[in-house]
């Protein structure tokens, strides 16, 4: 049975690839991008190639893919793992669309996220139908993606969402999802979501998921944003029950409920044509203990195109046992002829070092070259003092190529 499911999944992905080849004629330009990255950090992967492409074969049919292949050094992947290569598919799917948008079908490997259903990578199918009066019905099903098309016998996920738009001012939706792991129920949730724009300057969004297996709210989020001129103010709140977010097959999902709650505000101010300021503050209750966090970030673009910039950020986290202060500086400076120098510095000071170092500094300096022919090259030196290592130095390099065919 395991082999059969594995085969079906592989066939589905192969079909998406074949479809691309068959329908290439008179398609729009195929957009491709390849990134090759190498770094010296050990035992992390020594090299990585990421390939991505998308094409709109017909107005009603599009395909896209994103795959990676990597080489690992000895020790990467755990003790006893030999040097070698590896590869996987992050997304590979076809999207069929009714020409007037009344329905669409996605098949292959894709990220499923709709309504209160949290994002999950799925090897499967998702169908959506829309009515002109604003009703939407979505159905989806498949097996949650496993690394290297690995065996996940009797794992599946299925569900759907029904939504209705309200006089072009908003949408309200109800969703249901059930997930099985080795045929045992891992998640069963009913969700509700809402989006409203009662005025041009105001919009509100909310979602909540109710856990049926261990009855109670798994998570709930609400966000309301108002805009006036160069200022945008957002109020947000969230409730999260970590035990209910774990699969119900995990022993750690049965410990009871000590939820974490957060409420706060974020303000964005375009203070000048080239200066943006973003600040946020929130109160939190984690495990019955009150705390909070806040940060302020400013970014100054040093030219009209935004090629050069200077930025600074200060942050304070003070909740439960997570108490630290951080500062971050960024700088980007165009050197001409497609060359650009960037640097980044972060300093984190934990309140309780516990033998992990008093300060965790991290810095990066990079030089990138974009000659404008689709090629990009970048190299960087990264240095840090981390809780694990007193000193750490790493070199990184990337070579990228973007092109359109034909």
């Amino acid at each position: 049975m395991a082999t059969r499911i594995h085969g079906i999944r592989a066939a589905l992905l192969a079909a998406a690839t074949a479809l691309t080849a068959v329908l290439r004629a008179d398609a729009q330009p195929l957009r491709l991008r390849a990134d090759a990255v190498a770094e010296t950090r050990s035992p992390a992967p020594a090299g990585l190639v990421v390939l991505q492409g998308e094409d709109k074969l017909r107005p009603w049919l599009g395909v896209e893919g994103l795959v990676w292949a990597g080489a690992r050094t000895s020790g990467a992947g755990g003790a006893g793992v030999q040097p070698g290569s590896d590869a996987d598919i992050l997304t590979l799917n076809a999207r069929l669309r009714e020409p007037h948008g009344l329905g669409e079908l996605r098949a292959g490997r894709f990220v499923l996220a709709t309504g209160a259903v949290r994002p999950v990578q799925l090897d499967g199918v998702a169908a959506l139908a829309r009515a002109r009066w604003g009703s939407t019905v979505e159905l989806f099903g498949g097996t949650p993606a496993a690394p290297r098309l690995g065996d996940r016998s009797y794992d599946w996920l299925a569900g759907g969402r029904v939504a209705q738009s309200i006089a072009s001012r908003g949408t309200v939706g109800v969703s249901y999802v059930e997930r099985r792991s080795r045929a045992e129920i891992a998640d069963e949730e009913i969700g509700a979501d809402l989006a409203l724009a009662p005025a041009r300057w105001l919009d509100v969004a909310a979602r909540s998921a109710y856990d049926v297996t261990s009855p109670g709210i798994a998570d709930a989020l609400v966000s309301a944003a108002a805009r006036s001129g160069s200022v945008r103010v957002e109020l947000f709140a969230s409730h999260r029950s970590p035990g209910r977010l774990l699969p119900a097959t995990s022993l750690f999902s049965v410990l009871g409920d000590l939820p974490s709650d957060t409420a706060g505000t974020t303000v964005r101010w375009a203070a000048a044509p080239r200066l943006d300021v973003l600040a946020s503050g929130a109160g939190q209750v984690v495990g019955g203990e009150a705390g909070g966090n806040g940060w302020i970030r400013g970014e100054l673009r040093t030219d009209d195109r935004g090629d050069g910039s200077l930025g600074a950020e200060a942050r304070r986290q003070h909740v439960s046992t997570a108490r630290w202060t951080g500062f971050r500086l960024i700088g980007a400076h165009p050197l001409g002829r497609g060359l650009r120098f960037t640097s980044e510095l972060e300093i984190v000071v934990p309140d309780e070092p516990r033998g992990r170092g008093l300060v965790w500094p991290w810095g990066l300096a990079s030089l990138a070259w974009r000659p404008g022919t689709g090629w990009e090259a970048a190299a960087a030196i990264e240095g840090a003092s981390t809780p694990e290592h007193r000193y750490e130095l790493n070199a990184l390099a990337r070579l990228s190529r973007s092109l359109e065919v034909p």
Partner: protein
Amino acid sequence: MRYALTFVMIASLGLAACAGVLGLGRGSPSHPFEHRAHVDKGVSCVECHAGISTETGAGPLHLPSAADCARCHREPHDRRDCAGCHGEAHVRGGAELARRHLRFEHGPHTRAVKGDCVRCHVGVGERDPAAIRPSMATCFTCHQHKDEWRTRDCDACHVDLAAEDTPPASHLVHDGDFVREHGVRAASARDLCAACHSERSCAACHAAGLAPALPSHLRFDEVRLSGLHRAGFRSRHAEEARADPGLCTTCHGERTCVECHQRTRVAPGAGARSPHPPGWISTARGGGAHGVEARIDPAACAGCHGGAGELLCVSCHRVGGPGGNPHGRRFSSTKDKLRDLPCRLCHGGGP
């Protein structure tokens, strides 16, 4: 008096420098084209933008050349190209992008408004128009497009939104704290997001379980990105996880922690010391700190002790075991405790 004068001069120079840096001043001789002056002089739009009233959406843009200007301005004050100073490159660039990415014909529109171009190009009437290209809201003053909005049918006007790569003028999400905000905003509008963003946009972050380094992490030279995992995240990841229990679980699988720790050799069996503080497990009532901490962030426990590691907990907390009942006061479940996982580990015969 001399000091005051010096102070005023330095302050003026400082303000002038700041104005330039902040974008309040102008560093280049180019300036917005003097549309208003031409309108005030009674010059019709089509006198300079000749052929616009029959334009079909193909061919070159109808931007006037220096020769067109010279038809009236017979004695130019400068020998250089007029467009070098009069008019801004980004405005012309906007027109070129519109030609490439929008299905639009000036011809029928010009006839519909009886040659009153300002009805759409409202910016030309202002002294310092930031952009002359009409906003989408301007289109909606005549074209309701309610059906197209409901069905996400953008193709009637936009050639390919994903390739257009232009955020809307007043976007719901991109202006704020995107990483935190986008999830709740996308909940009701996944298909609206998909009008511009491909699956790869989501997979670039949400495919955490399938790649050793996600595409979003490869752009180390893009220091303006402010994602959750930027800069020295590896150092502070434990603090970040403790500050918002359950947040990691929304993208990462149950086994992410242990898989990464094994790769980086920060795991049991590799000579590492226990990450737990003194008093973590005690034989006294309450069992030490681990019980409360596990309830606050059970995903952190599952990160290392998930799967087969759960048997460590079962050895103490099984029915009749010395660890006692691990369920919190408000715990309830619809599962069959003798047959279903994980209940049967403690209540039944084991795995």
